[in-house]
């Protein structure tokens, strides 16, 4: 059999598998979110007998979803911007300087990724209790910043590494002010990385569960913690479906933007040489 034919068969198989593992689960979530409360969707009905957006209205009006959305969408941009500001100097040092112990610095900056999330959450809670700090928003924000610093440092240090020294020198020789040098040489190389870091930290913060659950309990809810409450003791399938979709859809859209940004961050384009 020719390679082309094998590839075509494999793609058909793959699409079949993806229908099973992506399309059907999401289709079921969508269906569950629009089951009309007046008529239950139960065995042996293949589809809900009546559909409406009543569940969406109910969840919006009767649960803490509104607060959770406000909390999540205030937290995430604050975390994204703060993380970016904290990561920039470290990324600059890694991207622009050679110094002994640089590899160690790079490895150590990955530390938050290798310590299990719930260990960080539980003992950060204990640490804050010991220190007498009780502000939930600030605690989660600090935790998220540290948790996602590795991503921002990694992305930005690559960007800083792409800034070309000859262009910096040329700009300086031509008498460009520090601001002009930043604008003409640094920013074009940094821009995709900065945006990518902002988006990736934003998405991670929206989706993060361990810290939000432990540090936020009992009354500070975010979208994942409210979803967990619908999946736990008081399992409400339709509510969980609504919240799942609210959590997934904006993030998928943002990820698609991110993919484009990361593609555009190639060295040839940034340095102006093809």
């Amino acid at each position, binding site marked *: 059999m020719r*390679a*082309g034919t094998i*590839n*075509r068969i*494999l*793609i058909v198989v*793959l*699409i079949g598998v*993806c229908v099973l*593992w*992506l399309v*059907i*689960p*999401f289709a*079921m*979530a969508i269906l*569950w979110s629009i089951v009309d409360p007046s008529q239950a969707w*139960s*065995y042996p009905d*293949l589809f809900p007998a009546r559909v409406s957006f009543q569940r969406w209205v109910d969840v919006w009006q009767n649960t803490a979803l509104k607060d959770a959305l406000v909390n999540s969408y205030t937290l995430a941009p604050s975390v994204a911007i703060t993380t970016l500001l*904290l*990561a920039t*100097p*470290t990324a*600059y*040092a890694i991207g622009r*300087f050679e*110094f002994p112990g640089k590899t160690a610095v790079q490895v*150590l*900056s990955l*530390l*938050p990724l*290798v*310590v*299990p*999330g*719930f*260990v*960080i959450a*539980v*003992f*950060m*809670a*204990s*640490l804050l209790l*010991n220190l007498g700090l009780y502000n939930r928003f600030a605690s989660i924000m*600090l935790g998220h*910043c*540290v948790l996602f*610093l590795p991503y921002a440092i990694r992305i930005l240090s690559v960007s800083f590494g792409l800034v070309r020294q000859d262009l910096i020198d040329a700009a300086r020789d031509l008498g460009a002010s520090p601001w002009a040098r930043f604008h003409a040489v640094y920013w074009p190389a940094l821009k995709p990385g900065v945006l990518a870091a902002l988006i990736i930290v934003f998405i991670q913060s929206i*989706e993060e*569960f361990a810290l939000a659950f*432990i540090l936020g309990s009992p009354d500070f809810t975010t979208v994942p913690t409210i*979803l*967990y409450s619908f*999946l*736990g003791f008081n399992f409400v399938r339709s509510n969980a*479906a609504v919240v*799942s979709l609210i959590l*997934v859809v904006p993030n998928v859209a943002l990820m698609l933007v991110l993919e484009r940004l990361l593609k555009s961050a190639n060295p040839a384009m940034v340095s102006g040489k093809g």
Partner: protein
Amino acid sequence: MRLRRAGLILLLLLPGLGLILVLIGSVIVMAFGQSVGYFALTGESGFSWEHWREQLDGRLLWRSFQYSAYIATTSSILSVLLAYPIAMWLRRPFRGSLFAGALLKAPLLVPGLVAAFLFINVISFHGFFNELMVWLGIIDRPIRMQNDRNGYGVIFLQVWKNMPFALLLLTGSVQAISDDVLNAARDMGAGSIARFRKVILPLTVPAMQAALVIIFIGAAGDFSFQAVAGPTQVNSMAQLMVRLKGEFGGYHEAGVVAVLLMALALFGSVALAGLTRFAVRAGMKV
């Protein structure tokens, strides 16, 4: 001058790396300290092995430890095993390969809790899977699959979520092998299995180890999948830690679990990576 430069670099590292080291360091010190009786929130603080003795004597901790080790090992190995053939398939671009890659990586975009919810929806008593099997006549009545005793549901979820990640690492590594190397092996008479075992596997060991380590650590510390889809008669380590801390306010007991969980993540993943290297080397010699 050199001193000034060193000072500048140190200053630059402070807000990023410094913050990471201070916070994560304090968290680790806290976990260790509380496990041996320090930093008590109520009552007396002081060195004691009591919490360790108490936890190590109980069966709960060992069952959780074994369970988390089992889930982490199985999930990481299965994810990598599944990702290899797909990475090989996508090694060279063909019509539709970008589309295939995007489809395969889609689960990376789905948060863990949502994935768990989608999964239990499909396998629940009157979920899609049961109804399909009944309709096809494979079974007479729906069977109970949710929260299965062996944790197969959790392993499935781990693989669903992590295989794309392994694929991402392996595809990059497999694509970096030049055709010249593979053609040379072919010219010297190596069949496709020998080429895989003696050329591709050894050259992709670092990527495979990275995938195994990261998936192992994530799965060992899992809470969400276990809480939603896992067996109800056993806790994962993270779940046990949260339970001890939450139900009884037992930070000291939770500290013991945390230290063991970190040890499991560290030594388990390093052992797995070491064994992989050993196995690949042995495979080359055969």
